[in-house]
C-alpha cells in the first residue's frame, strides 16, 4: 500500500493533482488614477470620480501617474523581481459597457516587472517558494450594476482608470490552502510596502484563479479561470470546488472547456460566465498615445533604498534575535503593525514571554472582539509593564491573566490594577509558613500518604496553599518551602 500524499485528491480513477496559478489584481495605493487626475477613493457617488479621460470622450489622452510607476517598482523589488528598464503600455481591445474606450491600457509583451518570488509560510513553519511570472501596470474598468433595473445594466465609471498591478504566479500552487497562503503572504508584502491596502472587501485585491487537474506525472490539463474572487476564503473555496468539479467531469468521461467562470459565494460553487463566452482576440498593440517607459538604474536604486524591512527578513530577525519559534515569528510578522507592537512589548524584556502574551492573550482577545491591532485597547507599553510585573515577581502568570482582562476592558495601567485589587504576590515567608503549616495540619492523612511514597500529592498541597492565599502566593516560593517541610 502506498501512502497518500496530502496534496492529492483521491478520485475513482486514482489520485488527482490540482495545478493552480493565480493572477492577483492589486489596486495601487495612490490619490489619483493611473492616467487621469480623478480621485481613487472608495465609495463615492456614481460617476463623480470620473474625468473626461476616464469616460473616453473624443480626443482625450492619457498621462501616466508617476507615483503609480514607483509603486510598481517598489512592489517588484519587494517580490525580489527583475525590474525592466524599458517597458511598453499596450492597448487590450475588447468591447464592454464598463470599458469606455473599448480598450484597456495594460502591459503585454514588455511588463515593468519580470520574474520574482514569494515564500509561503507553511503551517509547520517551513517555507515554500512560489515563482512570480511578472507584474504589470494596467487600468481598472468601471462597474456594471446588473440588479438595479429589470432590463438595463447601469454603468458607474468611478473605478475606471484606477491603477492596478496584475501579479501573475507560475502554476506552482497545488492546494487551496497553498493558494490561500499565497494570497495572504502577497497581501502582507503589499501592505508592508504601502503599495496596496489589500482591502479585499472594497475590491483592492481581487484574484483570478487558474485551475486544472491531472493525474500526477501527466501533462497539464485544460484550465479554467475563475474571475474576480474577493476574499482568501472564497479563493480557497472556489479552487476546492473547481478542482472537484473538474475531477467529476473527467471521471464521468467529459472534457474540461477552457473558459472563464464566476464564483458564487452564496453557494460556494463556480459557473461559466455568459457574457464572456465569445472567443477573445484582444488585438494588443503598443498604445500610440503613450511612449515607452524608460527607468534609470539610479531611480530603481533610490526606490530599493527606501524599502522597509519585509516580512521574510523580519521573521528571520525575530527567530535569530529574539529566539522565537518559526511559527511564532511567522504569526507576529504577518502584519507590520503587529510586529511593531511585539517589538515594543519585547524591548528590554524576555522576548519569548512577550511573544506569548502578544500572540496568545492579546491576539486571541482581539480576534474575539473583532478588533485590529491598531485598535487594541491595551497599549504596547502597558502590556510591557504587565510582563515586567510577571518578570519581577510582583504577580504570578495566573494573576496576570486576570489583570490583562481588566486592562483589555479598561485600558488601564497594570500596576494600578494590581495595587487597587491587592493582587500583589505574597512572597513573605512568614505568611507562607503559616499557610503551609495550616494546610499540612488540616491534611495529616495526606501528609502520611505522601511520605509513604504518593508523590503526586505534592500538587494537591501546592493547590491548597494557593487557595488559602487567594492565588497570590508566589508559586516558586511555595514549592520550595513545601518541599522542605515535607521532607523534614
Amino acid at each position, binding site marked *: 500500500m502506498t501512502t497518500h500524499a496530502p496534496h492529492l485528491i483521491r478520485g475513482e480513477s486514482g489520485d488527482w493533482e490540482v495545478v493552480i496559478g493565480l493572477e492577483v489584481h492589486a489596486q495601487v495605493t495612490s490619490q489619483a488614477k493611473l492616467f487621469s487626475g480623478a480621485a481613487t477613493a472608495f465609495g463615492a457617488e456614481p460617476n463623480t470620480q470620473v474625468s473626461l479621460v476616464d469616460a473616453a470622450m473624443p480626443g482625450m*489622452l492619457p498621462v501616466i501617474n508617476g507615483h503609480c510607476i514607483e509603486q510598481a517598482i517598489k512592489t517588484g523589488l519587494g517580490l525580489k523581481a527583475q525590474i525592466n528598464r524599458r517597458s511598453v503600455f499596450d492597448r487590450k481591445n475588447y468591447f464592454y459597457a464598463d470599458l469606455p474606450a*473599448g480598450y484597456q491600457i495594460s502591459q503585454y509583451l514588455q511588463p515593468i516587472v519580470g520574474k520574482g518570488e514569494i515564500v509561503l509560510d507553511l503551517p509547520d513553519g517551513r517555507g515554500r517558494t512560489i515563482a512570480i511570472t511578472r507584474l504589470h501596470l494596467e487600468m481598472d474598468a468601471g462597474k456594471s450594476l446588473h440588479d438595479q433595473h429589470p432590463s438595463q445594466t447601469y454603468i458607474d465609471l468611478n473605478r475606471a482608470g484606477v491603477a492596478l498591478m496584475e501579479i501573475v504566479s507560475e502554476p506552482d500552487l497545488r492546494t487551496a490552502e497553498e493558494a490561500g497562503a499565497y494570497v495572504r503572504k502577497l497581501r502582507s508584502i503589499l501592505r508592508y510596502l504601502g503599495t496596496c491596502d489589500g482591502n479585499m472587501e472594497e475590491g483592492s485585491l481581487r484574484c483570478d484563479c487558474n485551475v486544472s487537474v491531472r493525474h500526477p506525472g501527466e501533462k497539464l490539463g485544460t484550465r479554467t479561470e475563475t474571475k474576480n474572487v474577493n476574499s482568501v476564503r472564497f479563493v480557497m473555496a472556489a479552487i476546492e470546488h473547481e478542482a472537484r468539479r473538474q475531477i467529476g467531469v473527467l471521471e464521468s468521461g467529459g472534457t474540461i472547456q477552457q473558459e472563464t467562470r464566476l464564483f458564487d459565494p452564496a453557494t460556494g460553487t463556480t459557473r461559466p460566465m455568459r457574457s464572456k463566452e465569445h472567443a477573445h482576440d484582444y*488585438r494588443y498593440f503598443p498604445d500610440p498615445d503613450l511612449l515607452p517607459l524608460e527607468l534609470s538604474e539610479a531611480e530603481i536604486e533610490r526606490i530599493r533604498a527606501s524599502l522597509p524591512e519585509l516580512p521574510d527578513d523580519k521573521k528571520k530577525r525575530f527567530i535569530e534575535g529574539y529566539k522565537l519559534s518559526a511559527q511564532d515569528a511567522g504569526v507576529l510578522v504577518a502584519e507590520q503593525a503587529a510586529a511593531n507592537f511585539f517589538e515594543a512589548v519585547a524591548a528590554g524584556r524576555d522576548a519569548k514571554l512577550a511573544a506569548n502574551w502578544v500572540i496568545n492573550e492579546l491576539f486571541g482577545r482581539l480576534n474575539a472582539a473583532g478588533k485590529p491591532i491598531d485598535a487594541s485597547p491595551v497599549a504596547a507599553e502597558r502590556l510591557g509593564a504587565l510582563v515586567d510585573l510577571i518578570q519581577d515577581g510582583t504577580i504570578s502568570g495566573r494573576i496576570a491573566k486576570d489583570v490583562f482582562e481588566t486592562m483589555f476592558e479598561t485600558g488601564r495601567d497594570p500596576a494600578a490594577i494590581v495595587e487597587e485589587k491587592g493582587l500583589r504576590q505574597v512572597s513573605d515567608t512568614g505568611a507562607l509558613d503559616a499557610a503551609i503549616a495550616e494546610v499540612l495540619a488540616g491534611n495529616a492523612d495526606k501528609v502520611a500518604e505522601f511520605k509513604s511514597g504518593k508523590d503526586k500529592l505534592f500538587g494537591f498541597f501546592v493547590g491548597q496553599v494557593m487557595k488559602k492565599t487567594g492565588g497570590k502566593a508566589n508559586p516558586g516560593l511555595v514549592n520550595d518551602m513545601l518541599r522542605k517541610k515535607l521532607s523534614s
Partner: protein
Amino acid sequence: MTTLTDLSMAEARDGLRARKYSAKELAEAHVAAVERIKPLNAFITATPERALAAAAEADRRLARGEERAMEGLPLAIKDLFCTEGVLTTAASHILDGFKPPYESTVTANLWRAGALMLGKANLDEFAMGSSNMTSHYGPVESPWRRKGDNRALVPGGSSGGSAAAVAARAALGATGTDTGGSIRQPAAFCGIVGMKPTYGRCSRWGIVAFASSLDQAGPLTRNVRDAAIMLGAMAGHDPKDSTSVDTPVPDYEMALTGDIRGLRIGIPREYRMDGMNPEIERLWEQGKAWLRDAGAEPVDISLPHTKYALPTYYIVAPAEASSNLARYDGVRYGLRVPGRTLDEMYENTRAAGFGKEVRRRVMIGTYVLSAGYYDAYYNKARQIRTLIARDFDRAFKVCDAILTPTAPSAAFALGEKMDDPIAMYLNDVFTVPASLAGLPAISVPAGLSGDGLPLGLHLIGRAFDEAGVLKIAHVLERAADFRARP
C-alpha cells in the same frame, strides 16, 4: 480698397492695429462670406454669433492697445477639434448631437491669441479620405473649376472644408489635421498653403483621434507668412498630451528672412515615379530651379523605402483607427441605435453611425491586429516605418530640406475615384512618408495645371525645424508668385 475677405492674415492683423477697420467689420465680412459660400458645403456648423461676440472683445482689446498675436482674425476650425458647447461631429453620424464640455488645446491656444471662430469646417468622416466625399454631411465642393468645365471638383481631404473656406475667401485661415496628407493635399488642390508640423509640436488633446501616432494639427492659410503666424499660436507643449514635446516655439515669422543661400535641397530620386504626370514633373523641376536661383543647392538624395510608405501607412493608420474608434459605442455620447443586447446595440450603432470608408478602415485595422496576423501586417509595418524614418535621417545628413510635389495630380471631379479605394489612397503617395517619419512639411501653391487648376510643391524638413521649412517655403512662394484665384 480691397475687400476685407481678400486680406491676408498678416495684412488684416496690421490693418486692425492701424485702425483701418474694426474687428467687427472684419468678422462681419467673413460671416457674410461663410453664408455666401454655403453651396460649397464647406461648413458643418457656422457660429456667426460667437464670431461677432469675440470680435467685440477684440475691438475692446485693440482699443486698449492690448491686442494679442491673432487678435480679431476669423478662422474656420476643422470639425475634428472639440469646441466647448459647439457641435463637434468629425463629419460622422455617430457623433450626432455631441457638444463637448471641453475645448481642444490647439483651439484654446488660438482663442488665447485672440483669433475667433467662424464655424466648424467639413471634412472626410473621422479624417479618413482624400476628397472630402466621405463626410456624413455631404461632400465639399472646391471653389475652383477647370477651364471650360463647370463640373464640381473635390477640394481634397481630409481637411477639405478648411481648404475650400480659405481658398474661397470665407476665412483668413483654418485649422486642419494631417495624418497622411490631410492638410497638404487639400491645400495643393485649393491653391493655398498648408503645413503639417513635426509630430509632437501641436497638442493632440481634444482633437478627435484618427491615427494617434500620425495625427498632427496644422494651419491652412493663403500664404506662408500667415502659416507662420498661425502655427506660432497653435503650437506649444501640452502636459495633457504625453506625445507633446517640451521644446520652445520660435517666432516663425522672424524666420522668413528670404535668405536660403547655401541651403542644400534634397531631391529624392524615388519620388520620380513611373507614369508620373508630366505637368507635376515639370513643376518639380521648376521648383528646383527657383530654389537654385535663390542661392540654395539642390542635391540628389535617395529615400529607398519610399515605395513602401503607402502600404505601411494603410496598415498603421487603420490599425490605430480601429482601436481609437472603439469608443463610439452608443453608451456615453453620440448616436445610439437600440438592440436587444449590449452587443446588438454596439453592432447596430456602429453599422449605422460609421460610413462606408470608416467601416472599411476599421475592419482592415481590426484584421491586421488580430491573432495570427499581427506580425505579418502590423509589426512588419512598424519595422518598415523604422526604415522609412532612417531613410530621412540619412538624407538629412546631406541636405537641409527635401523638395517633392505635394500630390500626383490636380483636383479631380466629385465622385471620381470613389469605386477604387486604392486609387484614392494614391493621392497621399508624396505626403505619407513625412507623416510616417513625423517630420514637418508644407505645401505651397506653385503653379497651374493645363486645365487651370492649382498644383502644389512640398517641402519636408528636419524634426522641429518648422522655421527652416517656412523660410524655404517663403522663398518658393515669392518665386512662384502664385496669383490665380478660384
